């Protein structure tokens, strides 16, 4: 009896495994992992691309730029999405493991948006003022032309590329003050600001809904700009960055076709739809 069951079970098992293999062999799978800033855009790209290329399966997951790059180094993803440049140490690790140099592709442009509560009268801030807020040198809205209320500072978790970019480009590489509340994901920051009338936070433009976007000026004498297509394209908006996709080596085959499509007019049109800015 037992033997008979085992035979049947093994036959079913083999058939199942075989069919899985068959499906896997027939379709090309591209895995993409990384930046939470890029994850929505990457999913849109994947959906659109799979519609016209049914033979390709694209799996997109988030987790943060660092997560994606770690996965690339560990060989568990084909592309890493990143909202910061890959570090030299990370390139070195990649070289050690795979003996490849890594390949960087700029896929979109993003303006880092600074948000405050809708009820906050502060309309514009200079980079120096934002830096002072995040370093803890200014702690009351009164000093920035707002009401007499303490500033509650929100930021991203240290696993995020935005965290690193903001530190290097707005804080001049100095560390955030220790009482900054770090939240997982831009959506969580936006949500916190919606509920906190004295809050300030930063993140990608794609998530900015139901809050006030602060205009940013480079220094006290220059005009303040909102993060718009125009101002980011002309590099007038002072905190704009590229978004990247990294692969271990120069992409070939299905991966190359996908990248080419992303950089084509059709792919870049989706960039604008999601709320980011095309690379060119």
């Amino acid at each position, binding site marked *: 009896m*037992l033997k008979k069951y085992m035979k049947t079970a093994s036959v079913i098992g083999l058939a199942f495994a075989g069919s899985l293999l068959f499906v896997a062999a027939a379709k090309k799978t591209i895995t993409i992992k990384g930046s939470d800033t890029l994850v929505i855009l990457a999913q849109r790209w994947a959906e659109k691309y799979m519609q016209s290329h049914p033979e390709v399966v694209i799996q997109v997951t988030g*987790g*943060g*730029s*660092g*997560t994606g790059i*770690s996965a690339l*180094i*560990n060989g568990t993803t084909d592309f890493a999405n990143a909202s910061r440049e890959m570090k030299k*140490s*990370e390139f070195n*690790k990649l070289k050690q493991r795979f003996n490849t140099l890594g390949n960087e592709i700029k896929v979109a442009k993003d303006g880092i948006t600074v948000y405050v509560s809708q009820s906050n009268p502060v309309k514009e801030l200079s980079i120096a003022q934002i830096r002072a807020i995040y370093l803890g040198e200014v702690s009351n809205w009164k000093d920035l032309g707002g009401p007499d209320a*303490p500033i*509650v500072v929100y930021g991203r*978790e*240290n*696993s*995020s590329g935005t*965290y*690193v970019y903001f*530190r290097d480009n707005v804080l001049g*590489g100095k*560390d*955030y003050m*220790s*009482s*900054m*509340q*770090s*939240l*997982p994901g831009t959506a969580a920051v936006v949500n*916190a600001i919606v*509920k*906190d009338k*004295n809050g300030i936070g930063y993140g990608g433009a794609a998530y900015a809904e139901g809050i006030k976007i602060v205009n940013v000026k480079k220094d006290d004498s220059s005009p303040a700009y909102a993060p718009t297509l125009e101002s980011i394209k002309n590099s007038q908006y002072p905190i704009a960055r590229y978004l990247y996709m990294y692969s271990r080596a120069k992409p070939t085959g299905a991966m190359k076709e996908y990248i080419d499509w992303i950089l084509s007019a059709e792919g870049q049109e989706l960039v604008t739809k999601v709320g980011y800015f095309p690379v060119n």
Partner: protein
Amino acid sequence: MKFFKKANFRLNEFLAEKAIAAIATTSLVFIFLILIFVFRESIPLVLGYAMEEDNKLSLTALFSNNWIPVSNHPQFGIWPLIIGSIKVTAISLIIAFPIAVLAALYTATLASKRTKEIVKPVIEILAGFPSVVIGFFALMVLATFFQNVFNLRFRLNAFTGGVALSLAVIPIIYTVTEEALNTLPKTMTEASLALGATRWETSLYVLLPAATQGIFAAFLLGLGRSFGETMIVLMATGNAALSSTNIFESVRTMSAAIGAEMAEVVFGDAHYNVLFFIGVLLFIFSFTLNAIAEFFLKQRMMKKFQGGA
């Protein structure tokens, strides 16, 4: 023929027994492997060769006051994380312990059968609540509520996290305490009532002290859960690594630090080793608590079986 059949039958039994034993061993092996893995990854740190030459990490630096792991000059002071964990755990237990023990006392000794049948399962359902749901509730509802009531500067703080955490801890303390009270011999209640004590006096002065060991075990189990809980504190405490004693400021707990940072960390980096070291600390802590709790529970059971009370 007959002989063979019999032997065959026994072979099956033998195999089945071994198979089940193997499955049981597997889970033990898994725990053991996890243990080895976690300890192994933190060893470079303990032996002091985790950092690259330019910034050496000593154990004294490890217990310093600044947790800035991702920086041009990273600092791995885990002291604020330890304080954070202790603060949140203390708040949650101060709230949860009295509520849970009194609730257990009520359902085990005073409540009518019908009330008990309603109250007990409801509290136990709370134990099955996904912690992410409790965290979400704290983030959206509790935080705003406490900010309005206490006029707080920070929405997300140790207090909010502690209150949310107590929701997860109450059912654990409740269940174990209730169990401890229920296993007390009936004769105790009867003797106390016969001596003229009221039911309330019996519960509070006779049954509750008699169940002390079980309640202590419940306390330790609740403590362990509270210390190790990640999702609720990650969502509700604001995650700023401060080492202040103010309960209305943000905290970053040890478990939340691992939860938030482990995914991103570069493998083999000093940051990676430090996170594993925190994992080891958490493990040692909860292992010790569980061992002590187990010891107390066992002792009580032994007494019961031997007829003592």
